[in-house]
């Protein structure tokens, strides 16, 4: 992801909002990459969790265009391994909520097929809707 970011483009308001929502001091991230290295979903992501941390730290609202936070399933693998004890899962959640709170869902709940509806356990449906609908 070779992309130039001008540091004076920092959207401070966005950065502060994510810090507040997540409760995590994102700027403490050392960019060691442990979160990305251990993430079981990283190969599905367009940018890695550590890149998410970096972009948030720099107040880059463009991070909202990434699919990474929607692929993150809050498995907390990054959370338990971060040497700075930052909870990356919470940062993902803050990014998801930033969109969901504008009343835009990430999925369409009517899209579950009849065939899948017969199979899916309640636990999957409730969990999915909690993470993908606002």
């Amino acid at each position, binding site marked *: 992801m070779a992309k130039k970011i001008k540091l004076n483009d920092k959207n401070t308001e966005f950065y502060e909002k994510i810090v507040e929502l997540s409760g995590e001091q994102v700027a403490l991230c050392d960019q060691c990459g442990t979160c990305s290295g251990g993430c079981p979903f990283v190969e599905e992501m367009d940018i890695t969790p550590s890149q998410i941390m970096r972009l948030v730290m720099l107040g880059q609202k463009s991070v909202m265009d990434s699919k990474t936070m929607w692929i993150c399933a809050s498995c907390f693998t990054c959370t338990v391994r971060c040497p700075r004890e930052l909870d990356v899962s919470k940062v993902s959640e803050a990014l998801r909520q930033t969109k969901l709170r504008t009343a835009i869902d990430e999925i369409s709940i*009517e899209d*579950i097929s009849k065939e899948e509806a*017969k199979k*899916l356990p*309640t636990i999957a449906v*409730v969990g999915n*809707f909690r993470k993908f609908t606002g």
Partner: protein
Amino acid sequence: MSEKRKMLKVYLAGELFDVPEGSTIMMAFEYAGFQLKHGVGCREGYCGACATIYREKGDYKLKGGLACQTVVTDGMTIAQIPFVPAEKPIYDLTELTPDVSTFTELFPAVFRCVSCNTCTKACPQDIEVMDYIQAIIRGDIARAADISFDCIRCGLCAMRCPAEIVQYNNATLARRLYGRYLAKKSPELDKRVQEIEDGKFDEQIRELNEMEKEELSKIYFDREIKIS
């Protein structure tokens, strides 16, 4: 009425009116000169057409009730709701199964419930709405049908739900599923249906059809009701 009734000040659709004490919200609207075409029905608390939201003076709560049953208080602010737009999928009851998967397919929004209980607080029928929604989520259709039995589909629950669930349509489906698949079969009912089909009551029906209104009214009100 010999004594002059005390008048109360109420805000109806944003305007201030004086209405007699003891009026229901519906009476207040009509006293003030509104002609209600929507949001009015049986006027007896059965049909659920007249859901209304209001605030009482000095109370932070936004309350809901039936306009035909709720008596106005001084300083009340009232908004009549013509109807609640609701998601209403079309289904064929004979093709459904009485379990949670039917709701996953037809009413997936039910799984968005956060147990805030706002629906229960809004219900003018004092139904534990949240409890029947929770019963549906765990697949207990019979429980959902039982708890929701008194629902009159006024829509106040759906109006207030932060998860945008249409509770009463879920409840209706639960009761239909219960009726078709889960309720204990009644041999007496089958027998009676057979008797009707065999024409056992045709003569009586014909007599009723031919009766004058007054006579019909008399036997209706004189009828004996067996309460078991």
